[in-house]
């Protein structure tokens, strides 16, 4: 049989192939998802088992009788409550500080004319070329001399400004139509009010992305908090995890609980601010 009309048999077999293809695709996706998420999953599971169950073979992959005690142990005896509080404080200071200084600097670069503008902008970009790791030697001395060793200031102040944030926000401010600035200045809005009422609200997606990016960076810091703190009063949660994992191998469930506690804020952040996070991270990638 020739002709253009496909035979019912052929259509049926094509449909079957399409369904099969779809199933294969889902299988592949699911397999990859399981592999990626398994370490996280097993962490949660282990945090709900007793140390004996964790060490038993074959391993337990599902907690039939979850034991939540590990969380309170990690929280209290493991000092996770202090670590978390410290991390929250330091991260909040850094995030707010970075966003604020970036807004101010970006506004100057986008809307004002002043001598040495280009040179200063190059200077801001130059900060991106210096990895923080390179500056720790003198920074540690500086912080110590300032009397900020083992303090919130010591943890946060070096990170209160970034060339990257200023650069990113300047790009966003340059998108603000110049007519808006002109209209506002006729209407009597000076720079400060134009910045707070027009420029920043219009750049809100970038501000949000930058905030998420700053939050992530501050929360995940490891080297500097390790250098600049000496006791649990100021240790952040990342350093706290090191303490927790090195002290309690016989309480490995507590370590896992600590890991879950430490990761939880970012998981929540990822779920709520997925869009901004993606924007922030991809913008951050261009930074390199």
């Amino acid at each position, binding site marked *: 049989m020739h002709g253009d009309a496909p035979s019912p048999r052929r259509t049926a077999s094509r449909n079957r192939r399409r369904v099969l293809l779809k199933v294969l695709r889902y299988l592949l996706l699911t397999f990859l998802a399981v592999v990626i998420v398994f370490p996280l999953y097993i962490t949660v599971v282990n945090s709900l088992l007793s140390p004996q169950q964790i060490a038993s073979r074959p391993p337990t992959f599902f907690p039939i009788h979850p034991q939540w005690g590990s969380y309170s142990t990690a929280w209290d005896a493991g000092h996770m409550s202090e670590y978390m509080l410290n991390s929250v404080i330091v991260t909040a200071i850094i995030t707010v500080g970075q966003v604020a200084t970036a807004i101010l600097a970006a506004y100057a670069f986008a809307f004002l004319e002043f001598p040495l503008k280009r040179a200063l902008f190059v200077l801001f970009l130059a900060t991106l070329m210096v990895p923080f790791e390179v500056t720790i030697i003198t920074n540690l001395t500086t912080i110590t001399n300032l009397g900020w060793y083992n303090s919130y200031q010591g943890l946060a102040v070096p990170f209160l400004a970034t060339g990257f944030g200023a650069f990113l926000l300047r790009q966003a401010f340059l998108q603000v*139509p110049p*007519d*808006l600035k*002109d*209209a*506002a*200045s*006729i*209407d*009597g*809005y000076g720079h400060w*009010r134009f910045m707070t009422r*027009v420029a920043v*609200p*219009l750049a*809100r997606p970038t501000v949000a992305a930058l905030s998420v990016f700053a939050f992530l960076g501050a929360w995940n810091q490891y080297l500097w908090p390790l250098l600049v703190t000496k006791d649990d009063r100021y240790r952040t949660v990342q350093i706290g995890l090191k303490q927790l994992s090195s002290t309690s191998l016989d309480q490995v469930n507590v370590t896992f609980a600590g890991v879950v506690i430490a990761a939880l804020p970012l998981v929540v952040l990822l779920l709520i601010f997925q869009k901004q996070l993606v924007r922030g991270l991809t913008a951050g990638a261009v930074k390199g």
Partner: protein
Amino acid sequence: MAGVTFDRVTKCFGDVVAVDDLSLDVFDEEFLVLLGPSGCGKSTALRMIAGLEEPSEGTIEIGESIVNDVEAKDRDVAMVFQSYALYPHMSVRKNIEFPLRTRKVASDEREKLVHDAAESLGLETLLDRKPAQLSGGQRQRVALARAIVRRPKVFLMDEPLSNLDAKLRVQTRAELIELQRELATTVIYVTHDQVEGMTMGHRIAIMADGKLQQVGPPQAVYDHPANLFVAGFIGNPPMNTVSGPIVRTASDPAGSFGIGVEGTVIPLPAGHCAAIERSGAKTVVLGVRPEHLRPATEGGLVATVAVIESLGHERHVDCRLADGQMVISRLSSSEPAPLVGERVNLTVDPLELHIFDGVTEEAIETT
């Protein structure tokens, strides 16, 4: 209420002279249209009144006082931008209210003013929308409402209609004229559209290359363009211009000479000849409005019909002279039209001729 005066104002951006030695008086309560082709410096002139640009030379007065050193916000002017410059993140209400917020206006008073402005432009039902949820025409009204809400001394408008479609533009034109009458304020209106200039302005000021070319009531400018540029810029289709050598025809009863165009000579009336003689011009350019160029059975210039454009109420007959120059005759659609390819004789009433100096391009007055 106040007038605006430019006194020998020049504005340079680096090497570019955007406005060149501009002197212009805008009267109180006048609707003045600043007209000119793209890049001629209209916006720059307007922005200097607003205080958004500083003049390089000269002074600008609003009312009786020199405002060169007065900040934009203290000049008591309002501006409507071509882009409308609405704040995208604010509702219509907030946008209209915006200029009042910096001026110490009590909040109930503010509300009343916003309401009045919105009402006079038919925006009451749109107050809670964001600019993105409005049509182009509605956005334009919000921009106007924001300008009128604080009753400024002077309104500045920079091509406020250019983003509207043709029909809305005609309608809004009429509304703007009415609005200006009601508010009885000075309006300085920038456009490159000569129809807007002709229909809206009490006077029009025509600029080219940063220089003022002519100021006057629209009809006066149309009837007596000061130079070739204005003649070509005002009127649609533009004035026909024909250039040719001055030919002495001593025997001609009408005058002592005419303009030679491929064999024929267009005779000039005696008054014109005297004027040309007085001016000392070596060559001249003749200008004829298309409506004054009539096809006839004999005499005049011989031409071939190249294209006929029918606009419904009138026809534009494009004709090619023997030496290749193109001229346009405008006929009402009730008149009989020639056919394409037909040879026609184009005649003109000598009194409707405009004469320009071929070198300076200035009009030669013939009265």
